[in-house]
């Protein structure tokens, strides 16, 4: 666990555990995540469904639903004025947390229809966000909202200000979501599968838009996705998650060109690529993700890993250590005694 400050770090997550206490047992959705988000950089969190990537993101904003709660770890947020706030222990409902949420850190979701209120005009919803966080008059807020709608590429923003979410197409709704998220000029935008529900041509537009706005507002972006193509398109840093842990992290070139962790390697090999893949069998990862209530002992990936070493991988959980150009949590690169 790192304790010293990392220069340029906006958010330092260390040892984060978010567990769900269900009737059937404890689901360790996030189980020891170490992650750093740097200012003005785009980090992609890559993982399959159930790997805990969304819960990790929700933990940052403290919007994890019951019966889940953060049980351990720190989420150190460095505010613009230099203060450091541990979001993991900030009191729920405190002014401090409310100010960060939405103002400093904003989030957009996969299905904008479920996160936009259905019976309020989108303009009003954006104005509400602005009024909540900034000292402006209603009229000013309205003008800003319209400007924001224009900025995210919604045609006729003045007219669309009066539109209800259901009157917009999926891509336009996602744009409206982005307009709302960015209306307070956050320092970090968390985007949870923002383009998964969209067509490829719309997806390309939204990814372009996010990249453009990231430069314009000089913000950091954390983009959560399962799509390797999206990661390659937008990421600067990448963290690969599997069963609640980061198994490999590094810059995008290291992860794509020199992946170290057996899971990252297998994932890279298992996607068909246009113009590259030969017909025939894809190298698939064997088996499936274990049931969350039946986590394997030791390394969570060992049950599907071709390089699993009996007596090593099943005894303890590997930590992230430098390997190749990235950092990897695998006993191929460190020994089980924890000496790295």
């Amino acid at each position, binding site marked *: 666990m790192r304790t010293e400050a990392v220069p340029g770090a906006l958010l330092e997550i260390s040892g984060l555990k978010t567990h769900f206490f269900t009737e059937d047992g404890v689901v360790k959705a996030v189980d020891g995540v170490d992650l750093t988000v740097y200012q003005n950089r785009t980090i992609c969190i890559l993982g*399959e*469904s159930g790997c805990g990537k969304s819960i990790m993101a929700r933990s940052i904003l403290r919007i994890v639903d019951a019966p889940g709660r953060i049980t351990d770890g720190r989420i150190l947020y460095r505010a613009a004025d230099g203060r450091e706030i541990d979001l993991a222990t900030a009191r729920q409902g405190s002014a401090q947390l409310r100010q960060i949420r939405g103002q400093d850190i904003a989030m957009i979701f996969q299905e904008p229809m479920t996160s936009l209120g259905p019976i309020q005009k989108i303009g009003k919803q954006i104005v509400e966000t602005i009024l909540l966080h900034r000292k402006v008059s209603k009229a000013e807020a309205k003008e800003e909202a319209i400007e924001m709608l224009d900025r995210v590429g919604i045609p006729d923003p003045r007219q669309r200000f009066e539109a209800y979410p259901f009157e917009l*197409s999926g*891509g*336009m709704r996602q744009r409206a979501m982005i307009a709302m998220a960015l209306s307070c000029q956050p320092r970090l935008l968390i985007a949870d599968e923002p383009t998964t529900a969209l*067509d*490829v*041509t*719309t*997806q*390309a*537009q939204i*990814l*372009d838009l996010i990249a*453009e706005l990231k430069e314009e507002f000089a913000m950091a972006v954390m983009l959560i996705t*399962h*799509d*390797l*193509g*999206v*990661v*390659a*398109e937008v*990421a600067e840093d990448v963290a690969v998650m599997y069963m609640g842990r980061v198994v490999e992290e590094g810059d*995008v*070139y290291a992860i*794509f*060109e020199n992946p170290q962790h057996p899971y990252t390697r*297998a*994932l*890279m090999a*298992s*996607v*068909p*690529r*246009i*113009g590259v*893949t030969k*017909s*025939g*069998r*894809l*190298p*698939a*990862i064997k088996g*499936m*993700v274990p049931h969350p209530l039946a986590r394997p002992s030791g390394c969570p990936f060992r049950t599907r890993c071709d390089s699993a070493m009996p007596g090593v991988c099943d005894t303890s959980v590997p930590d992230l250590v430098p390997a190749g150009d990235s950092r990897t949590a695998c006993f191929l690169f460190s020994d089980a005694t924890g000496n790295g």
Partner: protein
Amino acid sequence: MDETILKVRDLDMHFAVGTSLFGKPKSTMTAVDGVSFDVRRGETFGVVGESGSGKTTLGRCIMRILQPARGSIEFRGKDEDPVDLTGNNSERLSQVWRDIRMIFQDPQSSLNPRLPVIEIVGQCLRKSEKLGGQALADRVAMLLKQVGMRPEVLHRYPGAFSGGQRQRIGIARALATNPQLVVADEAVSALDVSIQAQTLNLMQDLQEQFDLTYIFIAHDLAVVEHICDTVAVMYLGQFVERASKTTLFKNPQHPYTRALLSAVPVPDPRARQGKRRRLAPRESSTEKTACRFAPRCPHATDICKTQAPPRKRIGDTDVLCHFAGEI
């Protein structure tokens, strides 16, 4: 190998949009618009398109889940007379639905949660082959084995399985009657990357083993390129381009195909092209131009708005565009 198994001609499908007080439709929406194609026995025929392109409706018309408004769909089974799937010969058609089966997108909703696996997979066998008891259990167990599942799961319910396993059950159900043609509608879209690869491999193995023909409907171009032999690109109900996989991906002719291909994010950070030319968003307004793609097309001229584009043949590509071969 050039034997045709399915011959679709001038297929139209409309939906009524909004009905007046007495059920008279206010307007109609054309979901499939004059689609014609042949599927060869043993091939995988891919249909790609974005949401709203009509690809699912096309699949549903073939399965007769929907009754097409116009056109014919001729199925030629092995050693059987051709039969028109849009026709009324119900006795003959009930036979045909053993030869043509479907795999659905959502393994969650396409399996009845209140039926055990043996019923889900075996129901059709009870009816068509009058199987029951141990014979049925043995047969379903064998089918499960073929899709890589343990026969012990016979009496479990769909809720006990993960998405990937459910899709395998769906595939076993489709295979139960020894079909010749399988319509797979977004069969792997809901699955995770690693499970998707397993399922695609399984579908290819089964195709070889049972000499299956697939109609593979999908929006993921990389998956389509991987599994299909022939690919048709659909846009607002029409096949705008159809060619062999190699030709289509190497040398796309229609501006829409090109836009689609360039919009797919490539899993290689060095291939990032910075800001590329993007398609304008589809206007929700129902401005209807002769060429459906004209409002978004970078090459469109006046003729595209007024005259329906001709179907041209360039090499082995069928393309619906005024300027095909020139742009």
